[in-house]
């Protein structure tokens, strides 16, 4: 069928709302979700406290999705996913200890899938979203390249003990492209483990993204490799500069359970280039345990000359298939010319339960 006819078939499926239009096994409607809560301890050199948080590494959320065959070889469906976080771990700090929950959009998406690939229309991942976050360590619920997911809202304190306006998020973001927005996305079929994606949509201005992804089991017992390269461009508002990001990540899991992950991104900023680099080494021992250490560095992100660093240790225990228990220790520091800022340390323990 021509593309127009395929879109017409999708429209007919969605408009009909009647099972007589479904073929084969009909339409499958699925409801799933998770709750991810943790206790977080923070120490910024001048103040320490405990926070009861929603772990933003993988927020509390629920999902409703449905898919069915339009005809043999052509599948269509919807994905609706929202998050509901009370005290998100990337928002709370010593000034804002409580953040009320709100229903926040993640995906509101219609898709069509065939031998030619997948087209998606609506709110959802841009083509390059996650390209700086590929990680096979098994510890991402505790820590991964987005080091701002836990403690991102905390502000650095100067040597006099006064809070500055510089947060962890502003100085050490992984610059993972344009996240989710209202877009039209195309994903190619998988060729020898490779898949290409492109999307166009808009936030306040137009957004364009490209990505090339790979995941495959290597021959000769070399384990599993996954990686992605991405590019995004968000058009400038009048008087500004285009927001362009280039980068990617790669993760290698050996059969022994040892794993290595690397990510790097560059972002065009007015008069400078914001850089992010991430390294992680981990070990999965038996299916229930995974541990890792990581290091991140952000350069020139909030201001020229900034050098933000993070060292972390994470552990995830999976006692039963639907639950994980995790722990995290990490320390952030920021070197800024002409300023003396204190380190911020975090300890977190929590659990994610899929329901």
């Amino acid at each position, binding site marked *: 069928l021509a593309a127009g006819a395929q879109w017409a078939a999708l429209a007919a499926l969605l408009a009909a709302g009647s099972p007589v239009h479904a073929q084969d096994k009909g339409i499958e409607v699925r409801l799933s979700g998770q709750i991810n809560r943790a206790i977080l301890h923070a120490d910024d050199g001048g103040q320490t406290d405990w926070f009861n948080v929603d772990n933003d590494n993988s927020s509390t959320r629920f999902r409703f999705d449905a898919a069915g065959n339009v005809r043999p070889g052509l599948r269509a469906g919807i994905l609706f996913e929202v998050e509901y976080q009370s005290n998100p771990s990337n928002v709370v700090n010593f000034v804002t200890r409580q953040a009320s929950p709100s229903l926040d959009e993640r995906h509101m998406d219609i898709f069509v899938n065939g031998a030619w690939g997948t087209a998606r229309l609506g709110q959802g991942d841009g083509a390059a979203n*996650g390209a700086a976050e590929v990680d096979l360590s098994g510890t991402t619920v505790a820590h991964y390249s987005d080091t701002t997911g836990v403690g991102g809202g905390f502000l650095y304190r100067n040597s006099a003990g006064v809070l500055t306006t510089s947060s962890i998020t502003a100085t050490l973001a992984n610059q993972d492209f344009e996240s989710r927005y209202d877009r039209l996305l195309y994903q190619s079929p998988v060729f020898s483990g490779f898949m290409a994606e492109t999307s166009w949509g808009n936030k306040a201005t137009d957004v364009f993204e490209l990505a090339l992804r790979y995941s495959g089991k290597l021959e000769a017992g070399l384990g599993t490799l996954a990686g992605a390269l991405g590019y995004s461009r968000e058009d400038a508002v009048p008087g500004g500069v285009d927001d362009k990001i280039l980068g990617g990540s790669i993760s290698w899991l050996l059969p022994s359970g040892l794993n290595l992950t690397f990510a790097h991104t560059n972002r065009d900023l007015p008069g400078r280039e914001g850089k992010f680099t991430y390294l992680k080494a981990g070990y999965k021992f038996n299916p229930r345990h995974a541990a890792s250490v990581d290091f991140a560095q952000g350069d020139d992100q909030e201001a020229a000359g900034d050098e933000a660093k993070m060292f972390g240790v994470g552990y995830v225990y999976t006692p039963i298939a639907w639950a994980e228990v995790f722990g995290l220790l990490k320390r952030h520091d920021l070197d800024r010319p002409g300023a003396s800022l204190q380190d911020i340390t975090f300890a977190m323990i929590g659990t994610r339960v899929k329901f």
Partner: protein
Amino acid sequence: MRPLFVAACVALAGCAAEPVRYHSQNEIPPGPGLLSGAEGAFVLRVGGSASDAAAPSDSAAPRNAAEEREYQEWREWKRRQESGAN
């Protein structure tokens, strides 16, 4: 740099024994759920075959222990049927 990248892609394509689907662990994990059981989601099949439609309590969480038992017994029976058919 560009030729190196292309060479790396070709080498990867050549030595990939099998493509695997990457699932970000920051998404809802695959596998069973606390309430949804082995399926990992509350599933409703609309317009399917008779055997699919006959699933008891397949579209909602079991409301009590007896219903949970009945659901698990049905799932076990269905699994046996499917593995027998294979």
